[in-house]
């Protein structure tokens, strides 16, 4: 393992992380809901009355964040290297997998670990492990 110190951004990573934690804290303390993105979006497909508007509002906030950010500062770099077919496959896997596994990086990785849920700890170890393995296979075994 070689650490890429030039790309290491500890301060912004911690600050951004704390901001994410703050958002999760407010949603929980004010609305009693868990800030798990896949669950919030997936719930929109269930059509339960009285349960749609808060989910839609949260998603609108997420999408609007870079638009607000851009009004005050230049957005940081964002590069998507994956080709369209890979993006489609990855999107299908992420959508189906997070719903089957009841959570993603936010719901299991942040909220679940915060309340020391054994299910979330296992889920996080599993998707991180498979994420590491996938990148290893794609980049180093197939040299894509």
């Amino acid at each position, binding site marked *: 393992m070689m*650490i890429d110190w030039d790309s290491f951004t500890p301060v912004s990573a911690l600050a951004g992380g704390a901001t994410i934690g703050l958002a*999760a804290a407010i949603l929980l303390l004010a609305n009693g809901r868990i800030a798990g993105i896949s669950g919030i979006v997936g719930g929109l497909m269930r059509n339960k009355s009285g349960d749609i*508007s808060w989910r839609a509002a949260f998603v609108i906030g997420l999408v609007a964040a870079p638009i607000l950010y851009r009004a005050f500062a230049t957005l940081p770099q964002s590069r*998507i290297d*994956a080709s369209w077919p890979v993006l489609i496959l990855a999107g299908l896997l*992420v959508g189906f997998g*997070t719903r089957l596994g009841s959570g993603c990086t936010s719901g299991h990785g942040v909220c679940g670990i915060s309340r020391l849920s054994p299910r979330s700890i296992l889920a996080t170890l599993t998707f991180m492990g498979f994420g590491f393995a996938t*990148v290893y296979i794609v980049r180093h075994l197939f040299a894509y």
Partner: protein
Amino acid sequence: MTIFVSLITGLIFGLGLIVAGMTDPAKVLAFLDLAGSWDPSLALVMGGAIPVSAVAFLLAGKRGTSFLGQAVQLPETRRIDRRLVVGSMLFGIGWGLAGICPGPALTLLGFGTWKAVIFVAAMLVGMFLFEMLERRLRRK
């Protein structure tokens, strides 16, 4: 009021993702690439988020109702089953292929790139397929 809080927390969450570097899929993949030139930054994103939200979970667990009088809704399942593990495996593979997870996918829409639109469309189809499967299994 709860809807306004949702909108604001969505915004704060999205701003956090941008600041943290989660909206740069190339950086996410550099974090997942242990055997390459590894960028450990994103481990610190979880390290920054968890202590803050852990305090909220402690508080909310004690109160039982939210400050706006809503019930605190926490998952009750404790069972570790095949769904949890297989779902997380599939998610991990998809995450490793593109470097995008659900939150950043939505925030990337606001960056205005077509690739984000493609990814989110496929992700929604994936979620919809799950709903269809779930409904079918429940009917049996």
